[in-house]
């Protein structure tokens, strides 16, 4: 691995904070530069979200490929990277998913030191509650699958759940809480910090982050990609990676690809800040509801998709009504707390609920997408595997199954068993 070339003077630390604080905070540099595009790069990553920036970081820091540009339509990190519910976990059922997300969790665990940026990974535990015997069996199957693969998982019975979270309504007539599957290493991270941390780390290694640079076309020469047309001119590239969650179908279409993807709305909510109430991440099987509390004190929660194709980033009330109904049914004390803000992201839903990190039919063009609503926790491993795939022109074992071909071959990775119904995945 090449040595990190980071100016010592620009490292973040408590001492530096103190020194700058005393001298009026005049010495801080831009977290990432605002360079002009070069004519050519070895690799152009389309998409300055978490995945694109992580890819650039690992290309530079793991594979030594530093002549890299990340191009972003507007400012970086304002897509799903900046509008998710910040949960990190690896409690998946199917081995292809478990090993990928577990690698991601391991990267999360060392990310602050790797990036010299506090992304506030907080492993306060992720608890998935079940409400019936069959849901319990499914949770046991999942937990055992995790444990067999060396991932932490603990089955918690109803009494233990009650002791952990005394504010839960355990005895709803239709959704009694029988217990939960706990991943102690699950938790949250600060979403914006992840973007900025990857951006800063990639920038310090020479990656050009080109904001306000919208890709309008993918130029090909025969069967091979040669660069991207952008609003800031043509940018040549030996290899182009697409990491544009929310717009995967549109950008892929620029290269003539049609994907098994639909774009859907996912809403999220934050309450007013309150003193600590909920320490871990809780998710409910009843009507799909998950909640955690930020360090600032707001309760962040979300649930299902709005359920129809949309690029609008604005949600509607049916989901809101239902979600609040579940929330208060499960945690009655939520009732008098106030929700401050709601927003929505565009989730690229695939036909089996699992993503793509793969080569495409076009030489030099790589695809990272279809993260459904699980993209945030995947950020480091997604970047790591995508960087590997681009650098080596072959998939890493962690993403070998995450191809588009899997549907034609019948190798779906369908955690929920919901089938080719993206709105239900």
């Amino acid at each position: 691995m090449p040595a990190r070339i980071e100016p010592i003077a620009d490292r973040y630390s408590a001492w530096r904070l103190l020194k700058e604080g005393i001298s009026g905070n005049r010495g801080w540099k831009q977290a990432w530069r605002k360079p002009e595009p070069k004519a050519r790069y070895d690799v152009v990553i389309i998409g300055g979200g978490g995945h694109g920036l992580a890819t650039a970081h690992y290309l530079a820091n793991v594979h030594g490929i530093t002549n890299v540009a990340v191009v972003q339509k507007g400012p970086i990190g304002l897509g799903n990277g900046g509008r998710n519910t910040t949960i990190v976990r690896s409690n998946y059922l199917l081995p292809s998913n478990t090993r990928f997300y577990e690698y991601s969790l391991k990267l999360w665990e060392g990310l602050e030191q790797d990036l010299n940026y506090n992304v506030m990974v907080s492993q306060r535990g992720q608890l998935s509650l079940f409400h019936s015997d069959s849901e319990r069996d499914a949770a046991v199957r999942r937990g055992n699958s995790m444990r067999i693969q060396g991932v932490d998982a603990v089955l918690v019975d109803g009494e233990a759940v009650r002791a952990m979270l005394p504010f839960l309504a355990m005895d709803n007539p239709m959704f009694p809480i029988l217990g939960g599957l706990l991943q102690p290493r699950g938790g949250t991270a600060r979403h914006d910090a992840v973007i900025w941390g990857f951006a800063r780390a990639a920038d310090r290694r020479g990656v050009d982050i080109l904001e306000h640079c919208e890709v309008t076309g993918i130029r090909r020469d025969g069967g091979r990609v040669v660069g991207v047309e952008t609003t800031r001119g043509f940018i040549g590239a030996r290899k182009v990676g697409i990491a544009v969650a929310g717009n995967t179908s549109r950008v892929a279409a620029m290269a003539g690809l049609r994907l098994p993807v639909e774009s859907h709305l996912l809403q999220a909510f934050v309450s007013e800040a309150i003193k600590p109430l909920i320490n871990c991440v809780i998710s409910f099987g009843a009507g799909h509801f998950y909640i955690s509390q930020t360090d600032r004190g707001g309760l962040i929660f979300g649930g299902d998709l709005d359920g129809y194709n949309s690029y609008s980033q604005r949600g509607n009330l049916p989901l809101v009504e239902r979600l609040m109904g579940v929330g208060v049914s499960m945690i009655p004390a939520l009732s008098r707390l106030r929700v401050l803000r709601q927003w929505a992201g565009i989730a690229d839903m695939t036909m089996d609920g699992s993503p793509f990190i793969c080569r495409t039919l076009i030489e030099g063009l790589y695809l990272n997408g279809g993260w459904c609503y699980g993209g945030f926790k995947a950020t480091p491993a997604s970047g790591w595997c995508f960087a590997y795939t681009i650098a080596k022109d072959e998939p890493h074992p962690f993403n070998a199954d995450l191809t588009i071909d899997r549907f034609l071959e019948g190798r779906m990775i369908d955690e929920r068993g919901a089938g080719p119904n993206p709105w239900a995945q």
Partner: protein
Amino acid sequence: MLLIPCPYCGARPQDEFHYRGDATVKRPAPDAGLQALYDFVYTRTNPRGWHLEWWHHYAGCRQWVKVERNTLTHEIRTAVGPAEDTPQLSA
């Protein structure tokens, strides 16, 4: 709560319907082969703009209604019955 203009029942709130995705794909003939079925089941244009889509009026007249809706603005401009064709889609 979107208002879906059911061609039979009139404008109805979205919660009377189940959304069921792209209505432009047609089930191919039985002998059309794997690729054709694959495209029918899996491949989607997923446009940012006008989209022809199924809404099943499960709590109303139980028809599979074909609705033309803009995925960026959520505006709806036409809706027809299950076996009818809509006016030509345009962007």
